[in-house]
């Protein structure tokens, strides 16, 4: 049995003739919420796409649940939510999730369960295109949670949400981790970093730091994670 849900090693990715990930390595164990933090353009989405197996990879390896990323044996055990909602705007919440549940071969009960989890029961029969941006984002998240995946990959799931909802979603992420899933959650907002069990800071396609929030605060001598990030960038520039 492998302990790591995700093992990225020496990952290089080229997009549009330019290398955007320059040898990324890190592990994600079960039961952990890993925050993938970095400014816009740092390569977060590309890295997440490599983990779910939809990104063409130049070299290096990404293993997920003991198999190469995207392998037939792991598809369906990995939940993925892209930053902009990847659901059908002309179907209702329930119809969307029922379709994805059918694709995954899940029983009907699975749909009601995830609708409940993301707090959309009141809107289940509304057409997704008529929902607010935040609600659409939660439909997207619900689709990623279908079937209780062992690895959940979320690209900026809390962008543009009000603080109350953001709080609720982070509680949900930790709940899922406590149930044994590994989560990889990207964000470009450092204030969210403190909510993660561990952080991988990405900048211009390289890992700047891989540490817990506490380690990061101690190592940089500041309580403010935003400042910590800036200090790391400065140290890197000097080195």
């Amino acid at each position: 049995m492998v302990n790591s849900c995700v093992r990225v090693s020496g990952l290089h990715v080229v997009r549009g003739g330019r290398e955007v990930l320059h040898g990324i390595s890190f592990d994600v164990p079960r039961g952990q919420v890993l925050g993938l933090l970095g400014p816009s353009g740092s390569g977060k989405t590309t890295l997440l796409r490599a983990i779910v197996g939809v990104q063409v990879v130049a070299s290096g390896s990404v293993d997920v649940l003991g198999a190469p990323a995207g392998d037939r044996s792991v598809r369906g055990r990995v939940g993925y939510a892209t930053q902009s909602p990847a659901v059908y705007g002309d179907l209702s919440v329930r119809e969307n999730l029922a379709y994805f549940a059918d694709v995954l071969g899940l029983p009907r009960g699975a749909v009601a369960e995830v609708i409940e989890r993301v707090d959309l029961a009141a809107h289940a029969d509304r057409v997704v295109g008529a929902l607010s941006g935040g609600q659409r984002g939660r439909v997207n998240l619900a689709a990623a949670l279908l079937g209780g995946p062992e690895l959940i990959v979320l690209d900026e799931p809390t962008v543009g949400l009000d603080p109350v909802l953001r709080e609720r979603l982070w509680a949900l992420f930790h709940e899922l981790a406590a149930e044994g899933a590994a989560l990889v959650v990207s964000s470009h907002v450092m204030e969210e970093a403190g909510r993660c069990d561990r952080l991988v800071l990405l900048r211009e396609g390289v890992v700047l730091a891989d540490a817990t929030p506490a380690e990061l605060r101690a190592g940089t001598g500041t309580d403010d994670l935003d400042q910590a990030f800036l200090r790391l960038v400065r140290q890197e520039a000097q080195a």
Partner: protein
Amino acid sequence: MNPRVTLATTRRILQQLRRDPRTIALLLVLPTALTAVLRYVFDDDQAVFTRVGPLMLGIFPLATMFVVTSVATLRERTGGTLERLMTTPLAKLDLLLGYALAFSVAAVAQIAVLLPVSLLLLGLEVEGPLWALVLVAVLVAVLGVALGLLGSAFARTEFQAVQMFPALILPQVLLCGLFAPRDSMGPVLGLLSDLMPLSYAVDALRALAVEPGFGSGQAVDTAVIAGVALAALLVGAATLPRRTG
């Protein structure tokens, strides 16, 4: 491939179509309206409509289904749902067959309007069996779906996708025998015409218009259309990448 996933995909696409009544109206009305226009364009010479009218049962379903499928697939790609599906156990052929089945249902509905109106109101005369006309028309529609899927598997942008219509459909219309008999074409055009699946639909429909039965010639034509449609679906599934750059 998994029939459960294929049928779930078909159901999902039909649900989406149901939410779009204007598209349904266009799909149902357009081929019939255009055929009616054609009938009155040749009002002076009924013989021309008798010769050309049956061919519309092949050409209009091909064109409409191709366009609808291209756009639907493009939407699936740009909306991110294609990427989501690629991370699931769905086989690419499940998706393509799901589309083919869903739009075949739409094609049957389209022909259910076009055929009675042509026969009863526009004075179209056909000698062959009706089921054979329906069969050819539906197969051509499936061919349109398959080529639309194949075209959009190649296209990377909206601009490329819309140009697949003049690239893949218009040459077939020009060379299918609608404008000039196929046997009057020179060797090069004749060869090209032989390579285009719509030519076989036109041959079959033309024969069904004047001959009372469904002969072996039409059976071969029908098999060719079905074979090309299936091949296009398989090639489309093979060329649709799970990973992108």
